[in-house]
């Protein structure tokens, strides 16, 4: 019946997405360490792979799930943590992913016109990394609210 692998009430795909997202968050941290050690090519590969893989996860799994479970109920039920967490996660996650893709385009390609290129890469990369981890924590909170009953009942 498509049961999950983490022992919660979640279906298997939700467990796999959670593990994948945590893995990608850790990979970004490793990528940032690579940059500090001047291993810039490895850093570029690592961060680019995460940003592109996450884009695929968002488009193929998260957006369809959001459309079925959350968007029909907003804004009416936004007062419930179930919907509020998922909505904030989706909103900030979209910003983080778009920012990641923008940095990827600016840093790794010549597609963007000169006036749209970044001048302070480090600053923007660090900001996106912080935002990314915030979104990851919101995602974990959403998972807990949706699939772990014992955490929220007295």
């Amino acid at each position, binding site marked *: 019946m498509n049961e999950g692998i983490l022992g919660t*009430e979640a*279906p298997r795909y939700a467990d796999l997405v959670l593990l994948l997202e945590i893995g990608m968050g850790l990979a970004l941290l490793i990528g940032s360490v690579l940059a500090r050690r001047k291993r810039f090519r490895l850093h570029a590969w690592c961060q680019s792979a995460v940003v592109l893989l996450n884009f695929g996860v968002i488009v193929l799994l998260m957006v369809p799930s959001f459309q079925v479970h959350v968007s029909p109920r907003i804004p009416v*039920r936004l007062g*419930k*943590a179930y919907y509020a967490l998922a909505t904030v996660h989706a909103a900030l996650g979209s910003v983080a992913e778009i920012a990641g893709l923008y940095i990827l385009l600016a840093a790794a390609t010549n597609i963007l016109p000169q006036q749209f290129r970044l001048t302070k890469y480090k600053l923007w990369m660090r900001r996106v990394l912080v935002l990314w981890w915030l979104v990851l924590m*919101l995602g974990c909170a959403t998972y807990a609210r949706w699939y772990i009953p014992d955490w929220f*009942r007295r």
Partner: protein
Amino acid sequence: MKRTSTWVASLALPVMVAMLLVLAGSPSVTANDQPSAAAAEVKIDNFSFGPQTLTVAVGATVTWTNRDDIPHTVVSTDGVFKSKVRDTDEKFSYTFDKAGTYPYFCSIHPKMTGTVVVQ
């Protein structure tokens, strides 16, 4: 020092907001396991269907009511019936015209299972 403080603040504030949202819990409701033969009811509460196995007569209409504080679905394992996502206090009904055993589950929480036996 100032930069470190800004970083800590930028991490801590959203995390606190997320925790507050998570902790905004709702009260639980006790399930009623006493369905009638013609029009039976299954209550969904605390990630379970109650009663888990329901026996009804042919032609009976079973109504599932979500008394949980999060959404659930009612989906036949054999594809006989399938509800949309039902939030708190929303209902789903299905009339069983043929005898048989109808296992079902919640597609959001696949460990939630139940069975309707139609005699």
